[in-house]
């Protein structure tokens, strides 16, 4: 287990003494380039789990190791995207994608000098998610799906090793959502970073992830771990196969039990 990329070891986290633990006794390990999904009912501490992985929060008990080192502060090797695209409305698409490079080292130090090089990189990234020609547009000129693509590009521009996605497609319509599954799948195929995807959508989790974890109601515990043994590359058709339906159903039963309890 020591060669795991992320190792979460019996972690509790309480935001304050009154409200009790948000997550409790969570242990799991992720291999490098693994794609994991976290599913569970609302308020089960999935987002808390993300904050732990990013180093934004420190566990109240237990430890989180990334690349073998205990996490004690913001990691800088992570990229994050959320349900809201949270783009800056005064920046163009391109400048929004470049934002992390203005902040994270080593890019920050050379940003002014190498701006053209970085801009070329950002353009390439935007092209790979189908946003070629939108570089100079402002966020409000883009559709929700496009904004979310930009948000994912922003999360990836500094080549993070760990991508944290908190229900990134939840606000999109069903067709756009499936389109973005493919975008994310292709990005992951090409660059092979490690992904933690927090989602309510069991089909989404099953389609994209290698391993799906089911979390309980608050305080969030990991109730089940399901390896998705559907071979890659996966196409959307796979979501209509029996094997896929079986896994989704199994996950659904877990959720159903949690909701009843």
């Amino acid at each position: 287990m020591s060669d795991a990329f992320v190792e979460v070891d019996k972690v509790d986290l309480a935001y304050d003494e009154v409200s009790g633990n948000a997550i409790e006794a969570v242990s799991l390990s992720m291999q490098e380039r693994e794609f994991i999904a976290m599913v569970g009912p609302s308020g089960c501490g999935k987002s808390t789990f993300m904050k732990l992985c990013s180093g934004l929060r420190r566990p109240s008990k237990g430890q989180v190791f990334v690349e073998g080192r205990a996490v004690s502060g913001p990691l800088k090797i992570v990229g994050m995207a959320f349900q809201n695209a949270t783009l800056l409305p005064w920046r163009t698409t391109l400048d929004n994608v470049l934002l992390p490079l203005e902040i994270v080292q080593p890019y920050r130090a050379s940003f002014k000098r190498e701006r053209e090089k970085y801009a070329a990189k950002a353009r390439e990234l935007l092209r790979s998610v189908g946003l070629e020609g939108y570089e100079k547009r402002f966020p409000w000129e883009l559709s929700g799906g496009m904004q979310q693509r930009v948000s994912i590009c922003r999360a990836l521009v500094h080549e993070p090793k760990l991508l944290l996605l908190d229900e990134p497609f939840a606000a999109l319509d069903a067709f756009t959502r499936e389109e973005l599954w493919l975008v994310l799948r292709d990005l992951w195929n090409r660059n092979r970073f490690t992904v933690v995807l927090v989602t309510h959508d069991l089909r989404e989790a099953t389609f994209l992830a290698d391993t799906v974890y089911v979390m309980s109601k608050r305080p969030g515990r990991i109730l089940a771990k399901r390896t998705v043994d559907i071979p890659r590359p996966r196409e959307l058709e796979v979501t209509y196969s029996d094997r896929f339906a079986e896994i989704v159903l199994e996950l659904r039963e877990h959720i159903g039990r949690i909701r009843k309890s």
Partner: protein
Amino acid sequence: MTSSLERWSPWLVLAAIILVWEVICRAFQISDFIFPAPSAILASLRQYAGPISGHALQTFWTTMAGFALGVAVGVLLGILVGSSRLMYRALYPLMIGFNSTPKAAFVPVLVVWFGIGTVPAILTAFIICFFPITVNVATGLATIEPELEDVLRALGASRMDVLLKVGLPRSLPFFFASLKVAITLAFVGSVVSETVASNEGIGYLMMSAGSQMRMPLVFAGLIVISVMAMAMYVVFAIVERRMTGWATRGMDARA
């Protein structure tokens, strides 16, 4: 057609008011000492153009000095209050209390401290106009999406980074909106102070003209002061649109 009517409608209303005013004054033969007709005010404006412009200039620069002070202090205080919970908790109630006090009540205090003249006028303009700026800047800073802050902080961004890259640009529309309010308030402050404690400025001019029952001149001063305040309002409205078009254009797109 409709849009051009809309465009000219304020001017039409203004013209109508002046016309009705003039007609009423003449029809009922209202004395200039009580309520001067627009024509009498205009005549007075012409007659005393020299002294009026001198006093107007005095009021203008006094107001702008107080306003500049108000912007500087308002922005700094806004940043302080908006970026720290502790500062917000500690300072906000105090600021509300201060803002609830009628600013005219400070003038006698300022006069004792600084004597009559320009300094109390500048300071009154300042204390009356910094508050909306502070509140608006603080609001802009305090309403940053927490997710966005997480994105940046996970990259190792310092508080300063978040402030410069996100907080300040985000609060610019709030800031410019508050400038429009603050500049008109600044005129209120300086004129109030001039009325009570000065030998210069439009406030003083109106006060002394009033005591001599020269009502057309009082009204002339009133008009000069409102034209100046409106002109500055327009200037800042234009600056606002130039600087933060993204904020209002975003709204247009959504509407």
